[in-house]
């Protein structure tokens, strides 16, 4: 198969776009596509100060690389979760290596050192998530990302969610008709309240396969192994179903997601779009819909009760983050 632009041997064929490209032209094409979506969904401009949530995986490191190449001011945020089997150590190593190689600033927050327990410990103590730590992991990551963005005066928080991530969540929420989640799924979540960071997903129309190809062709060293807790997760289950559809009908995943965005724009979920009432958490001040304390503070209260005075926990110190580089 030949590159459509230069006729050289192609490195990737994107059946959904009927487009094959060589490595050189693919590495030009993908950032151009991202730039197009950043503008189309009015995600941010070159005057914004961006914080990119970096896990050490192909999507987040690829996103950071693309934003850097496009000329945006983007620092990285790595959250150390304390995942076993060397997963967290290796993911931090990849994030740090990327930051050093490109002269970029990486902010790190180690959950255990900052708050007193790892994510697997949190899951065990809190009994949240039906035996999996993914639920408490998500809660902690969302909280810390928002907190660091706010405290560091970042105007935008960017995450590496790709098209496959978005389509899988959409599929899951649609099969259960979770309209309150469907109405909130979007390439951009505006900073609608004081204390809430503007969240954007510049890769929301980029296939996971395309991001893996980008990382390989750019020589980005990323953590290849799956998070040990994600194996057998519902997200992967829905991704597999969607990929079976994609195999028979190239573009099925993209159409599913784009038609959803169009339906939303046309008012399909207008009745569910009522504003959720938020107020500052009594303890930490972050916006919450809970009546008194936010779910993050309540979760950590449980942990403190179980682990007692041995915990080196202080209430959200101002020096929450350790700046590297």
């Amino acid at each position, binding site marked *: 198969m030949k590159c459509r632009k230069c006729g050289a041997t192609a490195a990737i064929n994107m059946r959904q776009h009927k487009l094959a490209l060589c490595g050189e032209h693919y590495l030009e094409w993908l950032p151009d596509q991202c730039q197009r979506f950043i503008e189309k969904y009015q995600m941010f401009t070159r005057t914004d100060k961006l914080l990119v949530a970096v896990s050490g995986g192909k999507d987040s490191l690829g996103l950071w690389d693309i934003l850097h190449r496009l000329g945006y001011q983007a620092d990285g945020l790595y959250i150390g979760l304390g995942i076993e089997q060397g997963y967290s150590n290796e993911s931090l190593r990849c994030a740090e290596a990327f930051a050093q190689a490109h002269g970029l600033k990486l902010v790190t927050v180690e959950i255990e050192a900052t708050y007193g327990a790892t994510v697997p410990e949190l899951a065990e103590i809190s009994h949240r998530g039906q035996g999996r730590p993914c639920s408490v992991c998500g809660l902690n990551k969302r909280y810390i990302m928002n907190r660091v963005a706010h405290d560091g005066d970042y105007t935008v928080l960017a995450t590496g969610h790709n098209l496959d991530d978005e389509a899988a969540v959409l599929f899951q929420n649609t099969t259960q008709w979770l309209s309150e989640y469907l109405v909130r799924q979007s390439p951009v979540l505006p900073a609608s309240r004081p204390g809430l960071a503007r969240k954007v997903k510049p890769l929301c129309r980029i296939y996971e396969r395309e991001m893996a190809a980008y990382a390989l*062709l750019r020589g980005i060293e990323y953590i290849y192994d799956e998070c040990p807790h994600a194996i057998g997760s519902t997200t992967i289950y829905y991704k597999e179903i969607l990929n079976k559809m994609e195999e028979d009908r190239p573009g099925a995943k993209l159409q599913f997601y784009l038609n959803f965005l169009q339906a939303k724009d046309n008012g399909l979920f207008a009745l569910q779009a009522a504003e959720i009432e938020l107020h500052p958490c009594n303890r930490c001040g972050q916006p919450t819909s809970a009546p008194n304390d936010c779910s993050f503070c309540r979760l950590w209260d449980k942990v403190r009760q179980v682990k007692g005075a041995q915990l080196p926990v202080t209430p959200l110190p101002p020096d929450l983050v350790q700046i590297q580089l």
Partner: protein
Amino acid sequence: MSKPLIKLKYRDKEFEVPAGMTARDAIKKVGLQPETILAVVEGKLVTDDTILQVGMQVKLIAVISGGAR
């Protein structure tokens, strides 16, 4: 006479398929989904219509990641 076999490396596994297949057919033959795999031959990313020939070093790269993010 049966066709010579070529080896495909995938994570910590190794598969053998007959030479002369496309990468896409080989990925399907070993029970993987072509949409979730990239083929790397001699260290270079290739399209899945590439014919796999004897002597090629073929590595299959999984692209899926998951869990709550």
